[in-house]
C-alpha cells in the first residue's frame, strides 16, 4: 500500500525555517513542502527557490487551500491566532516552541485541535536528542534510585541570528530566556521527572524580557531542583540529577554523561551509546521530529510533544513570571552616591 504524500506549508521564514525545518523536511519520505508564507515575501521567495518549493506567498491564508498540514515558525505572539486559523481550516500543525505565550492561548489552541480533529504537535526538538532519551530510559530503569535534587544550567552570550525584533519585546516574545531556552529545558525535565511545580523564581527583567534568571521547582516525587539560564554569561550546559543510588551529570547537547554512584569516588565518564558525534546533527533531529509528526497525522504510533504537555510548561513559565522576584545584575551599582 502506498501512502499519499502529505502536502506541507511552512509559515514564517526566519532562521529556524531556513536552517532546520526545510533541510529536514526535504529528507522526509511521504511529505512535500508545497508552499512557504512570510509577510516578508522576499524571504519566502528566496527560500522557496533554495529548497525547490513551488509557491511563496505573503499571507498564510492564501496557502491553506493547497496543503494538508502546516509548520508554524512565527513570532510567539502570533502562534495562537494563526495556529487556531490553521486548525479550523482543517490543517495539522507542528508549532515551533513555545506553544503560545499564555496558558489561555494554549488552551484555545488545544480546543481548536480537538474540535477539528487535527494533530497539534509542538517542536520540542530536544526530545530527540540521544541523551534526553537515554536519561529517560535510565531513570525509569532506576539507575539513579530516587531523585533527591537536580540542577540544570544553560547559558551563553546570545548569538541566534534573530531576523526580527519580536524576540526582544515582552508583548511579542512573551518572555526572555525562560520562554525561549526554558521551554526546551523544562520540557526535557518533564520528560524525565514528570510534572513540575514552581517553588520560586527570580530574574533580571526590568519591564522587558529577562536575560538571566533562576527557577526553583519541585517534581512529583518531591525532588527540588534549580534551573539557571542566561543570555549574558557562559554556563556549563548540563543537568545534574542527584539520586539515592548515583548522580548523573549529563550534557545533553554533546551526548556526554558522567555517572557517579553515591558512595563511590570514581565516576564513569562517557557518551550515550550510539551517539558518538561531538555535536548533535540538528537537521537529523528535526527530521526525526517531522517524521514523528507525520506518523501522528497518519494515526500511527509516534513520539511527539503533545500540545497538552507543552501547555504545562507554559503554565509553569506563566506562573513564574507572575510570581517573579526581580533581581538586578550584581554589577548594577548605583551611580548616584557611588564611591561615597
Amino acid at each position, binding site marked *: 500500500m502506498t501512502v499519499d504524500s502529505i502536502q506541507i506549508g511552512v509559515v514564517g521564514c526566519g532562521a529556524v525555517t531556513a536552517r532546520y525545518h526545510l533541510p529536514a523536511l526535504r529528507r522526509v519520505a511521504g511529505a512535500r513542502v508545497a508552499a512557504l508564507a512570510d509577510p516578508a515575501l522576499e524571504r519566502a521567495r528566496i527560500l522557496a527557490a533554495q529548497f525547490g518549493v513551488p509557491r511563496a506567498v505573503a499571507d498564510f491564508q492564501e496557502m491553506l487551500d493547497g496543503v494538508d498540514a502546516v509548520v508554524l515558525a512565527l513570532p510567539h505572539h502570533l502562534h495562537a491566532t494563526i495556529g487556531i486559523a490553521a486548525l479550523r481550516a482543517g490543517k495539522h500543525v507542528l508549532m515551533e516552541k513555545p506553544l503560545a505565550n499564555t496558558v489561555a492561548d494554549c488552551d484555545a489552541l488545544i480546543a481548536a485541535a480537538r474540535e477539528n480533529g487535527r494533530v497539534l504537535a509542538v517542536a520540542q526538538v530536544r526530545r530527540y536528542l540521544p541523551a534526553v532519551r537515554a536519561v529517560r530510559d535510565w531513570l525509569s530503569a532506576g539507575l539513579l534510585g530516587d531523585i533527591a535534587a537536580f540542577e540544570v544550567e544553560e547559558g551563553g552570550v546570545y548569538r541566534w541570528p534573530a531576523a526580527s525584533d519580536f524576540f*526582544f519585546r515582552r508583548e511579542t516574545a512573551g518572555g526572555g530566556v525562560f520562554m525561549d531556552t526554558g521551554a526546551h529545558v523544562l520540557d526535557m525535565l518533564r520528560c524525565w521527572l514528570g510534572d513540575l511545580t514552581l517553588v520560586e523564581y527570580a530574574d533580571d527583567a*526590568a*519591564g522587558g524580557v529577562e536575560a538571566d534568571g533562576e527557577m526553583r521547582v519541585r517534581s512529583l516525587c518531591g525532588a527540588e531542583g534549580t534551573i539557571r539560564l542566561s*543570555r549574558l554569561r557562559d554556563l556549563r550546559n548540563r543537568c545534574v540529577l542527584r539520586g539515592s543510588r548515583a548522580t548523573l551529570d549529563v550534557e545533553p547537547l554533546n551526548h556526554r554523561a558522567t555517572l557517579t554512584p553515591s558512595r563511590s569516588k570514581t565516576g564513569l565518564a562517557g557518551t550515550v551509546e550510539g551517539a558518538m558525534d561531538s555535536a548533535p546533527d540538528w537537521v537529523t533531529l528535526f527530521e526525526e521530529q517531522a517524521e514523528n509528526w507525520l506518523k501522528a497525522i497518519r494515526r500511527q504510533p509516534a513520539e511527539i510533544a503533545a500540545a497538552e504537555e507543552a501547555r504545562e510548561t507554559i503554565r509553569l513559565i506563566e506562573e513564574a513570571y507572575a510570581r517573579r522576584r526581580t533581581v538586578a545584575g550584581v*554589577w*548594577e551599582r548605583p*551611580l*548616584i*552616591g*557611588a564611591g561615597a
Partner: protein
Amino acid sequence: MRALAMSAVAEALRGSRIVALGAGGVIGGRVVEALAGELGVETVAVVRTLSKAARAARFPIRIVSGDVRDAGILDRAISEGDIVVDLTYPAEGNRAERVRAAREMADSIAAAVRRRRARRLVHLSTISVYGPVRALTLDESAPRRPGADPYGAGKQAGERELLRLAREDGLPAVILQPTVVYGPFAGWTVGPLRQLREGIVVLPARGQGICNAVYLDDVIQAIFRAAVAEAVEGEAFLISGEQPPTWLDFYGAYERMLGVSSLLAMDTASVRAQLNAQAKSARPFRRLIHRLRSDGDLRQTILALPALAQAYALARALLPRARWERAKDRWMKRGGAAPSAPGRPLRLPRPIQLELMASPARVSIEKARRRLGFEPAYDLDQGMRATREWAAWAGLIPE
C-alpha cells in the same frame, strides 16, 4: 564650574531622551541599564544586530537595529532635542578600511544629529588615539599619533572628523577618551582573567609601567556629565581613574581573584626578545604552509587524500614512534582539540600592548575635572572589588 552631584546630572538628563548608538557593547549595555534603570531616563538603544540586544531588552525601551551609516536607521532612533551617545566603532578591517568606515560613521551620525536637531553628541573615543606615549604625563594637549594600530587609527579618524565638524559646522559634539576600562563585561577584565587562567602572562618593564585604569561606571559617569555639561562642544576629555596603579598591581588584582600565580614580570628588552623568538619559531611552519599553499601539485596531493587521513599519516610517518604514541594519547585525551606544548603557555603582550604596558605616562584628568565636574568614584581596590563580584557571577573566577 562647580561640580554637579550625580543626582543633579540625572535630573538634567531627564529633560531629554537619550539615544545610545552601539548599545550592544560593554559601555553601551551599562549606559542603557543606568539610564533606563537607575536614572529613569527615556532611552532608545541602537544595536548593530539584534543578537546583541539581550541586555538592553531587559528594559521596556525602544530597540532599533542596523548600521549607523544608514540614515534611515538613525532617523527612526533620533528626535529633536535628544542627546546622542555614540559608542560605535569599526571593529573589523585593516587600518585603511577602519579609517574610512570611522569617517563614514562619524559623518552619518553628525548629519543625523543636525538633521534631527539633537541637542548633543557624546562620542566615545579612546586613549589609543595618542599612540605610544613615552612622556611621564599625558593630557589632551598631546599630539595624536596612533601609528599602525588599526583600532587607534580608526578611533582617531572618527574623533577628528567630529571635532572638525564641531569646529567648522557647530556640531554639538563632545569627545571622551577613556583609558584602560575594566569592570563587568569589559575586555580588560575578561581578557586578563582568561590569560591568567590559561597561561603565564608576561609583563614588560618589570610590571612597573603605569596602568591608567578606569572602572567602567566612572566612564558612564563621565558620559552622563558630558551629555549635560555646558560649553564643552568641540572639546575632548581624557577619562581615567585616579592614582593609576602599575600593570603589576592591575594584573595582580586578577591573579588574586583567580587564586593563581601566573604573572611573570620581565624587562622590556627580554619581552621583545621573546616576541621575536616566537615569531621566528612560527616562521618555518608558516613557510611550510605557504609552500603547500603555493604548490598546487603538493596541495592536490593532500586534498586528494580522504579528509584527515593525510594529517594522521603525515604525523605517523614523520614522528618517532614513541612520540607519536604520546601525541595520540594526548590528542585523544583532549577530544581532538589542538594540542599545545607541555607546561603552561606563555602569553606575551602583542606589540601594541607592549608599548602601552611599558609606558610610564600618567594620564591627567584635570580637564575633565574642571570642565565636566568628573571625579572618579572608584579607586583600584573599589573597582576590583566590584569586578570580582561580577566575575564570580559570570563564572570567570572560582566561587
